């Protein structure tokens, strides 16, 4: 296989995922409604209760709406990552996963391409959300919209890889909802998405430590700092490490000799 053929394969997978996304408009609106409800209703209601002190990367007091924007952007990536893993389970049940797996390209390349396609679709959703937030008067620095792009892609890949790993051992679509309840909500709430971690430390040091090492917290903080023209190296390192771990686990899960597929009797 030549580099051109590799690119053609990637392009084919990107186009397919893009078309699927376009054909499922309700998925697009559904993914936007969730964070917008948090922004328009939850944040407005809790603005006066949940005060936020001056913490990096902010240089002044900010409104609660502004604080939760990176968390909600990460929430879109998280749900989108899980949505793609849901589509992997669906693809497997419908047989189209087999089509992908019998391609002569390396399996890691195929899975990575699928992951990249899912991350790109998610990033588009985040930008639409950021545009709506801008209209809602939440306006990070203009350059932040550019700097946040690689952070969003990286976090999208990391959360997508987590979904990919989960999909490798979920046999049926029906089992998916249960697993999601044990992944999405704990990850989201035990993070810095909705409240700064110092507030959690005031309540429980143990919970604070859990939140600190939650990969979703690293994703939120990486997005938060990038959106405000800054770099959080610890968050970047954490996201990269989590990406490597989840990706490794996902590739293991989809390995025909070692992974879960044989035990689950189906791909």
């Amino acid at each position, binding site marked *: *296989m*030549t580099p*051109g*053929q*590799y690119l*053609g*394969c990637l*392009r*084919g*997978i990107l*186009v*397919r995922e893009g*078309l*699927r996304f376009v*054909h*499922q408009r309700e998925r697009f609106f559904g993914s936007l409604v969730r964070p917008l409800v948090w922004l328009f209703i939850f944040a407005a209601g809790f603005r006066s209760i949940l005060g936020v002190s001056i913490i990096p990367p902010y240089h002044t007091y900010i409104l609660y709406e502004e604080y939760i924007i990176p968390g909600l952007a990460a929430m879109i990536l998280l749900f989108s990552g899980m949505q793609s893993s849901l589509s992997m389970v669906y693809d497997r049940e*419908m*047989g*189209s996963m*087999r*089509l*992908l*797996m*019998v*391609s*002569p*390209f*390396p399996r890691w390349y*195929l899975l990575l391409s699928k992951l990249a396609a899912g991350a790109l679709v998610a990033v588009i959703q985040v930008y639409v959300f950021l545009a709506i937030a801008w209209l809602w008067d939440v306006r990070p620095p203009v350059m932040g919209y550019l700097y946040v792009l690689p952070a969003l892609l990286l976090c999208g890949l990391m959360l997508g890889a987590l979904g990919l790993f989960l999909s490798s051992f979920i046999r049926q679509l029906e089992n998916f909802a249960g697993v999601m309840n044990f992944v999405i909500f704990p990850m989201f709430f035990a993070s810095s998405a909705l409240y700064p971690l110092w507030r959690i430390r005031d309540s429980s040091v143990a919970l604070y430590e859990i939140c600190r090492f939650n990969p979703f917290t690293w994703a939120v903080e990486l997005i938060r700092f990038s959106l405000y023209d800054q770099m959080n190296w610890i968050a970047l390192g954490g996201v990269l490490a989590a990406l490597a771990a989840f990706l490794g686990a996902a590739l293991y899960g989809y390995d*025909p*000799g070692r992974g879960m*597929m*044989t*035990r689950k*009797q189906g*791909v």
Partner: protein
Amino acid sequence: MTREVPTTVALEIERVDFAYPRRCVLQKVSFTVPEGRFCVLLGLNGAGKTTLFSLITRLFLCQAGSIRIFGHDVRRQGRRALSYLGVVFQQPTLDLDLTVHQNLSYYCALHGLPRREVGGKVKGTLRAIGLADRANDKARELSGGQRRRLELSRAFLHRPRLLLADEPTVGLDIQSRQAILRQVREGCDRDGVGVLWATHLVDEVRPEDALVVIHEGTVRAQGTAAQVMAETSTHSVHQAFNSLTGGDPT
């Protein structure tokens, strides 16, 4: 009419074992499919045909024995081995939300076909199966028979040298079944493609076809269909199959 005797082995399965955690599915399965030959893998539901296909296509790895495609071991040279294969799975694999054209283009991308060739190949394929005017319809708008023929034609897009078809005619009416069989046999004769055709429908077997009868995970008989009938002292494939699988041989 004399027919050239094929010599190259397209698929070689040698003493393959496979078991799920609580169930043994295949035991010491061995047979070969020569290039350009139509080989029927005949077995009842649950005989192990689909598991065997999963092993050949490297979705699973066999626990003992070996599988080689044109001499390339599926375990060690998986990508090379897969590059020779066209596969039609038992489960439909078309993306129903994409158009007919998009489905075929996606397949071409997965098999590394150059972009400049894709348009022509897709058009030619659709014309050959009478679906040229449906190129922009969503796959879900096609009938069951049309979808199956599309999947089959798609499997030929990258000019495979070995076609695996896992019960592709199940659930179709007799005319669709015949059309699909004719299409594959033509590909086999014209292009010299080796075919492994899994089915439980005995009327899809011709006397000159290579036949492998599989039952409860073991190969019960192999040879041409005529040879298997002679060995079992029966007068039809149906009788031979029943006598080998514990059914009523009459």
